[in-house]
């Protein structure tokens, strides 16, 4: 494999990792506050549909992004009502909201555009177009680094850079602010936080809303940047891969970045079986590459590759003692 091919692979790694990263950070916020969320997939899906539809109708990708975030936040609030207010099973609520999203996106897209449950193709300002970073073209001549900068770092949509920025922001908020400390404490020992006079319910809702925001960005990226419009089931299990990445990352923001980049790399490889065959000189079937993130996650979960310990109060509704 030559340097050019490697750069191509890394470029598509970053593209494919972005929705995973946003969704993974979304899950991180929720689960750190003690609310399991297997509904990341559904939130991304409603966000993708809403942003695709609104971006087409208004011709503005930014309006699409806002609509995507709005729809995703509605789903997040539903999850909050079911699992925080009514103390329902968080896993079942997540499953239900995923199904709801899967069906309703097609129903609405079909009712609005009559194109077989898709939104019309987006172009121009209705998409987030690629940005050329400063000096990308001047630096291109510099060996190794110049091409890396011009081809891998530069030339993505703004949402990619926002996703990368979300990593330090999440880290700072969670580990360097009072809000973050309380939020993490709610995920570990809600009773203690309650005793200290902090609202467990309020903190968990705040976390769930941030989850909605980030999933909204992930879905909008899918429909308005990675592809040009929404298509049926277009998230294709990315919400679950993000969940896997979250376990891989052991519920840490920087870990989330590396885990999603790794999984993005696998996805990029699965799109280029010729490269894989060239390196390994054997015929590795594409499905094996696609299954790799899932197999790795199972191994991590089982403690064969490091141990992943989830937040202690995760999955438990908090019931105040009287």
């Amino acid at each position: 494999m030559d340097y050019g091919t490697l750069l191509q692979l890394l470029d598509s790694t970053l593209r494919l990792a972005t929705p995973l990263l946003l969704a993974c950070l979304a899950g991180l916020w929720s689960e750190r506050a003690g609310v399991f969320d297997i509904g990341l997939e559904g939130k991304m899906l409603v966000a993708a549909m809403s942003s695709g539809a609104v971006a087409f109708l208004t011709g503005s990708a930014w309006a699409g992004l806002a609509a995507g975030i709005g729809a995703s936040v509605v789903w997040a609030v539903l999850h909050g009502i079911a699992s925080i207010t009514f103390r329902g099973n968080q896993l079942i609520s997540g499953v239900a909201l995923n199904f709801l999203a899967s069906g309703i996106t097609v129903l609405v897209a079909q009712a609005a555009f009559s194109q077989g449950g898709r939104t019309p193709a987006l172009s121009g300002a209705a998409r987030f177009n690629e940005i050329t970073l400063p000096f990308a073209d001047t630096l291109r001549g510099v060996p190794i680094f110049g091409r890396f900068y011009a081809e891998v770092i530069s030339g993505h949509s703004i949402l990619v850079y926002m996703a990368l920025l979300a990593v330090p922001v999440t880290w700072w908020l969670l580990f360097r602010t009072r809000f973050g400390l309380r939020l993490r404490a709610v995920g570990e020992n809600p009773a203690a936080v309650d005793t200290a006079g902090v609202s467990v319910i309020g903190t968990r809702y705040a976390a769930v809303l941030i989850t909605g925001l980030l999933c909204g960005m992930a879905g909008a990226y899918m429909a308005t940047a990675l592809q040009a419009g929404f298509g049926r089931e277009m998230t294709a299990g990315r919400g679950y891969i993000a969940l896997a990445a979250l376990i891989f990352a052991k519920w840490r923001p920087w870990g989330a970045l590396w885990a999603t980049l790794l999984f993005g790399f696998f996805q990029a490889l699965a799109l280029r079986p010729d490269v894989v065959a060239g390196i390994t000189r054997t015929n590795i079937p594409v499905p094996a590459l696609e299954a790799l993130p899932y197999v790795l996650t199972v191994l991590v979960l089982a403690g064969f590759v490091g141990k992943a310990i989830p937040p202690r109060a995760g999955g438990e509704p908090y019931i105040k003692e009287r």
Partner: protein
Amino acid sequence: MQPIPRWADILLVPLVSVLLAAICATLVILAIGQSPWEALTTMVTGALGSAYGWGYTLYYATSFIFTGLAVTIAFHAGLFNIGGEGQAQLGGLGIAMVLLFVPWPHWTIAFTAAILASAAFGAIWGAIPGWLQAKRGSHIVITTIMFNYIAYALIVWILVDILRPPGQAEPATARFATGIPALSDIPGLSLIFTSPVPVNISLFVALIACVGVWALLWRTPLGYEIRAFGKSEPAARYAGIRPVRTIMIAMALSGALAGMMSINNVMGESGRLLQNSSEGAGFIGIAVALMGRSHPLGVVLAALLFGFLYQGGAEIGLWTQIPIDLRVVVQGLVILFTGALGYMVRSMLGVFFRPRKVATGKAVA
């Protein structure tokens, strides 16, 4: 929360939950500018109005009984088996193995072998996540989700690279030499099922499985152990119930039932193994088990309702402007109301069962 009588908990709660789901579905249909009445009549006539209709309704219901029972057994052990899809697809692989490579003299023997193979393959695919939870502490929900995807990739690889007959473009196995009788082939029943329909004798296996699951859970020591373990793990441990064994048996049984679903669709209907053979039935099992209140009788009733919904939904997709995906919406709503919002429904009903105010306050004064 106001406690409600047992009969209300068993009867009223699921009925109200389904009613709430139906109301929400009606609102969705109105919101996309279609007629709920037209949707309902299309569903009823499409699913129940003809031999073709009820043949398909029962065919779907058969699959849902198996996957609903699978989720039910795991629920009783306190485990949420979300891996029915993968287990069912592996069950289909087991059937393909025994039917493609062994020349069976008679369909009855082939059918028995297929049942055993599908159950064994499903059981293994369910027991591995069980073992990982019991021994290694990994969360069963996440592991079973991962196992769904791994199963999907595995089946794609096997169908494309190994079992696909030479010269065939589609990722699928060759046709099986033996099938099983559809109900429309059986004398007597052919008077009801007047046109060729996919519902087949797997329906009877599903019903027998219901009785078996009921007997196992409520009439055997093993069932008692499973239920006790699901109610309280520390108490069960204290009583000498071995956790690893209980989790693995419950998950293996759960996987076996999910795998057996494939005798209905892989052996009974398509006659060969196709990609994504489970068609979402593994997930519908969750809704069926929740709505059936984790009881085999409830599972049968819920499976019939979902069979109706599935066949009716297909007809809606064919004959109206409403996409077939409406049935996924209803499925999500049913899971939401019967599963996640059970507390809300119960507290709503509690209002009606509040005891009459008796003048007890006077004693204090």
